């Protein structure tokens, strides 16, 4: 038995895969370095959303992974374990977001340094300036 909710769930996965493909295309095909960094953040955020969607539970009485009381009874714990979404991807994703932020800040610093050294943000031009075929502007 395949429900409507399950079909929409799988379609969301396919759409996220398309978004990741667009991001990978941007990283590989765009020549501007800052555009490459923007595409890299798109890929990272899409991977995070993929993990969160993987931990979701397609059911009617789903609840967040937070216990509603401090002294839970046994039947409350049983109901919680049967209805809560998976907390492990959420714990991993909250770490990955911060790591992505640090990596992006470092890459942007490198992009600003490349611009001040070579006078361009174009990847191919930077390589040609390094080979000495083109005069650097900076």
């Amino acid at each position, binding site marked *: 038995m395949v429900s409507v*909710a399950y079909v*929409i769930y799988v379609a*969301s996965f396919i759409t996220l895969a398309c978004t990741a493909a667009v991001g990978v295309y941007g990283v590989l095909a765009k020549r501007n370095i800052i555009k490459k960094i923007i595409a890299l953040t798109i890929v990272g955020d899409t991977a995070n*959303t993929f993990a969160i969607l993987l931990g*979701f539970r397609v059911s009617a009485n789903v609840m967040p992974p937070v216990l509603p009381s401090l002294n839970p009874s046994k039947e409350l714990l049983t109901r919680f374990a049967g209805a809560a*979404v998976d907390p492990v991807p959420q714990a991993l994703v909250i770490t990955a977001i911060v790591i992505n932020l640090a990596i992006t800040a470092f890459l942007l610093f490198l992009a600003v340094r490349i611009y001040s050294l070579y006078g361009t943000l174009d990847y191919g031009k930077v390589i040609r300036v390094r080979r000495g075929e083109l005069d650097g502007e900076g």
Partner: protein
Amino acid sequence: MNPAFALGIVLYLCVTALVASILAIRARDLVKAVAFSAMQSVAYAIIYALLLAPDILFVYVAVGVGIYPILMLYAISKTKRFEEVSEG
């Protein structure tokens, strides 16, 4: 809440994020690209709220809509705003 309804909104926001990503990759103006990237971040933040991950929502709104665009706009202000058309 009906799971098909919540997941339908998730699918709609996924398509919004896909369109925003395509526009961000295609834009020549880097400031426009950053704005479309922030739009994609807003869509993902609402997805996190619908998928019952409220802690990630709080972190991601601050990072995706606040810190990423500020860092990138700072880098763009230090360099060039428009992507140049390269000839190979």
